[in-house]
């Protein structure tokens, strides 16, 4: 393992969401969804339970549709890697209100903790920068965590944040799996009407 100081995932996500109360949140499947739900269910959360690789492009569509609100994608390294090309798609659009937060334990946590590419040589911040997301950084210190929340709320440019977390499994906190319920709740919270 690399000598990077690792962060408690639940604490990181809870503090980030507490500091970004207006954010619209899309989660990748698995532990990232559990972390966001454990921080407190919100109408403006959308939890994926499948569609692996889809969290970041879903966040892009939402960010383009809601340019006046901060949009945050919170996902894991495995989920992001499956849809890694979407970082190029996001970079081509540069939505000012979109932040991608990858909780990186270097492993596929849901399937038995097999090592992922991010602990086998892939540098996700370098990947994000290479795709054209200039503001890409590792959030390790309390200051950089504060900076992440500030950037989310400021909506001044696309941001990519990598957070090294411990490869542990906190207690399961399962968000609703009822996709239509979560979708309609989210849209209602935005004041959108049924078709």
């Amino acid at each position, binding site marked *: 393992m690399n000598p990077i100081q690792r962060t408690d995932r639940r604490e990181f996500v809870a503090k980030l969401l507490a500091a970004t109360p207006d954010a*619209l949140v*899309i989660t990748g499947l698995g532990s990232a969804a559990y972390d966001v739900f454990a921080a407190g269910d919100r109408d403006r959360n*959308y939890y*994926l*339970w*499948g*569609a*692996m*690789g*889809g*969290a*970041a*492009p*879903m*966040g*892009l*569509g*939402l*960010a*383009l*549709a*809601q340019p006046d609100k901060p949009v945050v994608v919170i996902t894991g390294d495995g989920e992001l890697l499956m*849809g890694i*090309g*979407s970082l*190029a*798609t996001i970079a*081509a*659009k540069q939505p000012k209100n979109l932040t991608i937060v990858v909780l990186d334990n270097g492993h596929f946590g849901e399937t038995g903790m097999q090592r992922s590419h991010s602990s086998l040589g892939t540098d996700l911040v370098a990947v994000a920068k290479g795709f054209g997301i200039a503001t890409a950084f590792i959030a390790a210190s309390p200051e950089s965590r504060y900076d992440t929340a500030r950037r989310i709320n400021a909506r001044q440019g696309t941001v990519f944040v990598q957070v090294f977390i411990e490869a542990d499994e906190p207690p399961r906190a399962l968000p609703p799996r009822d*996709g*239509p319920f*979560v*979708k309609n709740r*989210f*849209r209602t919270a*935005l004041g*959108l009407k049924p*078709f």
Partner: protein
Amino acid sequence: MNQTPVPAPAWQQAIFKVLKEGGVRQIAYVPDAGHSHVIRSAIADPDIEDVVLTTEEEGVALVSGAWLGGQRAVLLMQSSGVGNCVNMFSLLKAADFPFFTLVTMRGEYAEFNPWQGPMGKATQGVLELMGIHVLRASHPDEVAEIVSAGFDAAFEAGERVAVLLSQSLIGRKTWGRK
């Protein structure tokens, strides 16, 4: 580059008209010649976000995100791209998202490239297996009506709809450098 602009075929203009008048705000695509007019028009339209994708399944997630945020979005792709989308189509069914895609067909009419055959011939079946209703337009004069019908089913009834644009609409691809 020294190209003289050629007017787009009327059926391609009719497609953009349906999307524009239907209030589409995001057009996501992996390019194909048959979509070139709609893509150019989306890029030129200040009210429409054009989103070029690295692979088609991104578009399935993107249009769902757009709907979550209150906008209508559509996905343009070639038949080969349908294969790339299969698992991502789960999102549409699991959360009951409306979905509208236009698929230009390959591998079915005067096809020169055998590598286009397998996915082209499976395209309709793959879409239907994943719960997407399939319509097809084969003649230029029916494109506007069929695209409009599919569009309304998606955004007025919340269905998942693909309109296949037959390869015969686009015509034979010229391969020789004459």
